[in-house]
């Protein structure tokens, strides 16, 4: 059962790579060369590996957010907006609060998660109280979050003059790790830490553990899953369905918000005007789906997509090949994961062929 799932996932990824390769080949680029560049672009230097992790963290967290909601029967398209709210709140709290180093970061993360949790919770509340489908409410909330972000950036007390960005967060709120290692004698370590590598990846792993533990080992998880699968039976069993929906969206939102917060505290140190959705939430959906909505799956899928997103664009300066092939690949991978039946048919055909050949 489990092995089968893993097989299907790996097969989907391979098919996605094949589709991407075909797209490159048809447009006159050597797919092998392109993939070579991507792989080199991710693995050839310690620094690149760091960057891949940095790129993965936000989408792992939004992926966990989406996966968590999914497991409780909710489709959170709003991870995008919750991420934005988390980021914006983190930037505000990182700049305006004055607290000792370390404590500051912790407080900021908590505030950001609460804010994003509330943002997710709104969708939960709308669903439980008014029956508004979460897909539509979260789409609306995404846009509201985007404009809210821009509003915050443009707030005169917060906007950094001469820019479309906010003030930088204070040093005390940053979560970069081991700055000293940047000047380490060991080249590998120096490479790894020459990037804004930060505690984000640790948070992502912790979040994955949290999701796994909560869903599978706690009564809360039991309640949330029960409600996700069958509201009527849960109600009958004495579970407060409305409360569960809200809690689930709050947790989901907080996870996405953590993504936004780590990005601000660890990488960008600021927020800036968003002209359009950055897509972290949508990538999170892809991550969650490829990861079969499991925590471990989301981490792995997040790393894969993070690698694609970091290493992929390198084919552009190197080959002049359109880096959008990455989106085509991600789309294909998600497409194939959507239809396990297709893969079963192919696998069956292959098996049969092999059988005939023997």
């Amino acid at each position, binding site marked *: 059962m489990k092995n089968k799932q893993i097989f299907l996932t790996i097969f989907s990824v391979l098919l996605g790579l094949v589709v991407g390769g075909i797209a490159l080949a048809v447009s006159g680029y050597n797919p092998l060369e392109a993939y070579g560049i991507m792989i080199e672009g991710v693995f050839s230097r310690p620094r690149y590996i760091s960057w891949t992790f940095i790129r993965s963290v936000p989408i792992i967290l939004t992926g966990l957010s989406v996966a968590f909601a999914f497991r409780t029967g909710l489709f959170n398209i709003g991870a995008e907006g919750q991420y934005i709210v988390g980021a914006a709140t983190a930037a505000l709290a990182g700049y305006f609060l004055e607290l000792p180093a370390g404590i500051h970061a912790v407080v900021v993360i908590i505030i950001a998660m609460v804010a994003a949790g509330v943002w997710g919770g709104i969708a939960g509340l709308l669903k439980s109280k008014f029956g508004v489908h979460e897909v539509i409410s979260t789409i609306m909330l995404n846009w509201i979050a985007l404009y809210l972000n821009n509003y915050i950036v443009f707030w005169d007390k917060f906007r950094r003059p001469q820019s479309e960005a906010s003030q930088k967060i204070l040093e005390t709120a940053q979560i970069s790790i081991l700055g000293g290692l940047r000047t380490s004698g060991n080249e590998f370590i120096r490479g790894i830490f020459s990037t804004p590598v930060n505690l984000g990846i640790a948070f992502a792993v912790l979040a994955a553990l949290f999701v796994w533990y909560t869903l599978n080992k*706690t*009564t809360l998880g039991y309640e949330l*899953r029960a409600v996700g*699968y069958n509201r009527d039976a849960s*109600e*009958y069993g004495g579970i407060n369905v409305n409360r569960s929906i809200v809690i689930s969206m709050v947790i989901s939102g907080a996870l996405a918000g953590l993504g936004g917060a780590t990005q601000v505290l660890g990488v960008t140190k600021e927020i800036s005007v968003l002209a359009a959705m950055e897509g972290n939430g949508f990538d999170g959906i892809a991550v969650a789906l490829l990861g079969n909505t499991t925590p471990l799956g989301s981490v792995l899928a997040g790393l894969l997509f993070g690698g694609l997103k970091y290493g992929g664009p390198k084919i552009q300066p190197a080959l002049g090949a359109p880096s959008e092939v990455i989106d085509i690949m991600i789309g294909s991978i998600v497409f194939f994961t959507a239809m396990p039946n297709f893969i079963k048919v192919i696998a069956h055909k292959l098996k049969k062929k092999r059988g005939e050949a023997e």
Partner: protein
Amino acid sequence: MNNADYSQKVIEMKNITKKFGSFKALDGVNLTLHKGEVHALLGENGAGKTTLMNVLYGLYAANEGEVYVKGEKLTSANPSIAIEKGVGMVHQHFMLVEPFTVVENIMLGTESVKGLGVLDSESAKEKAEEIMEKYGLKVKLDEKVEDISVGMQQRVEIIKALYRGADIIIFDEPTAVLTPQEIEDFIKIVEELTHQGKSIIIITHKLREIKAMADNCTIIRRGKYIDTVKVSEVSEEELAGKMVGREVNFDVEKKEKEAGEVVLKLENLTVKDNRNIEKVRGLSLELRRGEILGIAGVDGNGQSQLIEGMTGLRKIESGKVILNGVDITNRSPKEIIGAGLSNIPEDRQKRGLVMDFKISENMILENYNKEPFSKKGKLNKKAISDFANTLIAKFDVRPANEEAYAKELSGGNQQKVIIAREVTNNPDVLIAAQPTRGLDVGAIEFVHKSLVEQRDQDKAVLLISFELDEVLNVSDRIAVIYDGKIVGIVNPKDTDEKELGYMMAGGGVHDEE
């Protein structure tokens, strides 16, 4: 019914085998239907009856065997071909599009059009009126299907078949959802149909109906053909024996028992339904320890709202529910369960089980947050699986695997899981709503035994059922519900179906207003 003309075979199914994956649902089944005949198809749950009929109707392609309709062999499986050949089917779960009007449902698939594909409802209505006239089937054509009663919906299904010119009609468990009155009407309709030369195949678990309607009966067991018998020549017991392959005990074994003190008291309850209409209207009732109180009534007289109100799933507008002297009116389901009221819900898949949960997880649905299943919000996996395994063994749930998902269980086994859970709650009052709906005789036997056991342990059982047989056989007292009120309480020994049916239809009730 004796309208059969044995010289004309309208259906011949020979040696039908149908596999789902590696599972053989049908294994060499034969069936012959003659013109004007009513032919019953009998078998346990999962025996393959529906599958066989789906093959006949072209919904499934058989892996082996042949189907002849009026002497012509069917070459490919497709409902349109069956329809064209005059085969109609009324499915167990009605195949009606609820938001559509009756006439839209009737014409769907064979719509009259005016050109450019524009619907011509008027001519469809005319045609439908003719059919209704001819067979004495009355329905309102412009109403939406979701707004009409189940009995009416069945008529729509019949009209649908006739509208397509069917002269062979298959009924899959047609009476399972009907009231006694509606069943009687249905039998008349069948009579009329055969009278007009239609041939009928009918699937039912109710042996009495077979006796009442059918000329012949084919019995299948676990996908295998067992026998075809002339109904007039066999008894109900013989039929049942052939069906399950052993002897079946119809009577519910029950010792005499004195009822004890009052444990549940309903005082003047009023409950509304989703459309804000009062469905329970000033209902009062007392339930004692050590008795099974049956509530007889036609579907839609407030039973569902009554149960939901008592169990905290629906608001009680006025009145009181008193359990063991404690007022539990409008408490949360959790509190009510805690107070000692358990419920085998009417719709097991909707309310009773989380189909995507394992058996073990379903077993603790009401107690997941209590010790030993959890402590401080952390689940105790071992305690849960031990508990589940005990119940699985005790109630003979198959498969005996706590990791199996509820959706993988058959209906009977799903019901066992629920009963195991509810009974183990050790409630003072157990509400059993339609506990045997859709189950075969073997499974029904088990459920009834469980209810009686509760009673014998001095618990109170409130049995709500549309099956008069069941109510009569199992209950110690019977309360008849009509229009949201209890209109009479009778002793099962002093009454019969006729009297009950009369009361259930509101006979003898004089509205105060």
